[in-house]
């Protein structure tokens, strides 16, 4: 085998081409890592939303969307009094009657400008059911009051200070004071504005609620709820595990995830072809040198290995640069989508994928140039100009 110093010093022979290849590798790895971080972010957000013990009772036929669901206002109370398997908190059944509404919001400082907002009308019992929701500042809202999740500002596209406690938002022409802020362990609820259920029913001119979220003592008690929904046909209810609901929502975003991967891959493939050209130009000028090395006893395998080492070094530098940028920058990017906000995730999986992509590019990028350089006979290579 040729010494490592030969491969290392070769990188400095054509510094501009080496730099071009490092940049190309950096961009491709960054693209792939970004696509992975995007997909892991959206998947994580949807998968952490949903408690294993929770069941959402929706209107029959609306299992795919809380937005479209309608159940009678009395239904949550009937469920609470009829099903023994419901977890009890301070001797009260953990059933949360909820209204889910996607509307607009204006800030008191800019009343004429509207931003999209997600509202959830709740009662105190919501905190007994959504156990990952923690009020971080202020208090639970009463009438004419709201509390906001920590991602609401990002979802709306306003500053965090616009939604500070003491400020107010305008919804359907009515002002609501912000009295609390909450977080929910990265769930989609962090992008929601929670308010009194009666206020939301009035503001949205609804007579029915969207759903009842129930916390069970044990996950296997789901059958009891399901059976109840089937028996009480008059209520037109349908039960779905909260995790299953968000998993189906995750499937809804599958085409977007695929589109992100496809875009990243297509751009990467185009970049790899560009990289092959640069590598070809850098390697082909060494054709005579490689022929001379073969004359003194160096095998083609050893030469390919040496070129591969050069390619690996270039691509690993590119991967290191792009992964450093990705680790520092991508997690700070929050992306809002129709039902929430997620942040991009750069974890071990993403890092491994980045290095793996660099490795694949290192191999794919030198196969053709190395073949072009080493396939001809030694004699013809020595004669080449």
């Amino acid at each position, binding site marked *: 085998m040729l*010494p490592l*110093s030969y491969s290392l*010093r070769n990188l400095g022979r054509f510094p501009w081409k080496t730099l071009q290849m490092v940049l190309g590798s950096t961009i491709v790895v960054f693209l792939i890592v970004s696509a992975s971080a995007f997909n892991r972010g959206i998947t994580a957000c949807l998968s952490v939303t949903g408690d294993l013990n929770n069941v959402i009772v929706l209107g029959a036929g609306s299992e795919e969307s809380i937005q479209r669901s309608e159940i009678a206002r009395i239904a949550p109370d009937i469920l609470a009094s009829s099903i023994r398997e419901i977890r009890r908190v301070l001797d009260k059944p953990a059933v949360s009657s909820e209204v889910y509404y996607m509307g607009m919001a204006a800030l008191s400082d800019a009343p004429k400008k509207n931003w999209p907002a997600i509202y959830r009308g709740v009662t105190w019992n919501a905190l007994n059911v959504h156990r990952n929701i923690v009020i971080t500042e202020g208090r639970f809202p009463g009438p004419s009051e709201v509390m906001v999740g920590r991602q609401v500002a990002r979802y709306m596209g306003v500053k965090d200070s616009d939604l500070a406690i003491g400020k107010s938002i305008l919804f359907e022409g009515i002002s609501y004071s912000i009295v609390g802020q909450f977080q929910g362990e990265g769930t989609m609820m962090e992008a929601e504005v929670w308010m009194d259920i009666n206020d939301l029913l009035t503001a949205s001119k609804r007579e029915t609620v969207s759903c009842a979220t129930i916390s069970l003592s044990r996950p296997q008690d789901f059958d009891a709820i399901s059976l109840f929904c089937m028996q009480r046909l008059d209520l037109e209810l349908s039960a779905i595990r909260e995790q299953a609901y968000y998993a189906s929502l995750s499937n809804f975003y599958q085409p977007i995830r695929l589109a992100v991967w496809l875009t990243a891959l297509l751009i990467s493939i185009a970049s790899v072809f560009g990289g092959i050209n640069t590598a070809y130009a850098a390697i082909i000028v060494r054709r005579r*040198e490689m022929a001379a090395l073969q*004359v*003194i*006893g160096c095998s*083609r395998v050893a030469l390919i290995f040496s070129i591969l080492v050069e390619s690996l070094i270039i691509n690993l530098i590119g991967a290191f640069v792009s992964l450093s940028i990705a680790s520092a920058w991508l997690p700070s990017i929050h992306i809002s989508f129709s039902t929430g906000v997620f942040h991009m995730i750069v974890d071990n999986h993403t890092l491994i994928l980045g290095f793996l992509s660099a490795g694949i590019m290192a191999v794919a990028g030198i196969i053709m140039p190395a073949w072009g350089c080493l396939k001809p006979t030694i*004699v013809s290579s*020595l004669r080449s100009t």
Partner: protein
Amino acid sequence: MKSQSSPIIISCRNLTKSYYKGDTVVTPLENLDLDLEKGRFLALMGPSGSGKTTLLNIIAGIDSPTSGSITINNQEISRMSRSQLTRWRGKSIGYIFQLYHLIPVLTAYENVELPLLIQKISRSEREKRVLNVLELVGLEDRMSHFPRQLSGGQEQRVAIARALVTDPMILVADEPTGDLDAASAQNILSLLRQLGHDLHKTIVMVTHDVKAASYADLTLHLEKGKLIESSPL
């Protein structure tokens, strides 16, 4: 080219090399027979296209004949595979190029050491051999210089040291002085003759230059792929 004192090291029988150039068949060597004794310094001369470099390349194992056989030190190299030839070349042949073909990113020492690295020789043995051949070619004080820091004559000396370092049976040189000024050329040729004599190496050199050929023990003239004359000195 035979004498009774030394064994034959290079033996060619009916050696023919032909290839296509477009639709035309080119035959640089045709039914060539040659025997060369061990330790001789042979100069191959002839006009361009006479087949001298083709013959040199076949002897060096970097080209293969279309028909006929070539035996070097009782080994028929015309039957070897490409990888077998590579290994054989590394141990048996020292090749000196017209344009030196030193590796520009390696120092003179590293260039000379390279064939030994390929053969996985131990570090201490490498050091001993490299210093020895650099001293032989008079470049022990230039060992840490890169090729760009050396003159043409010095580069060719490094190339000779690289060719010698594996202690090969045969040194082949393709116009070794073709890119040098007259004084440097004379030095290189003297060095080759001296090394051949002192180290008992068989040397095959291609040259256009009659003066260069005069340093050899014998000269073969080729024309249109055939041996037309030999002139022992």
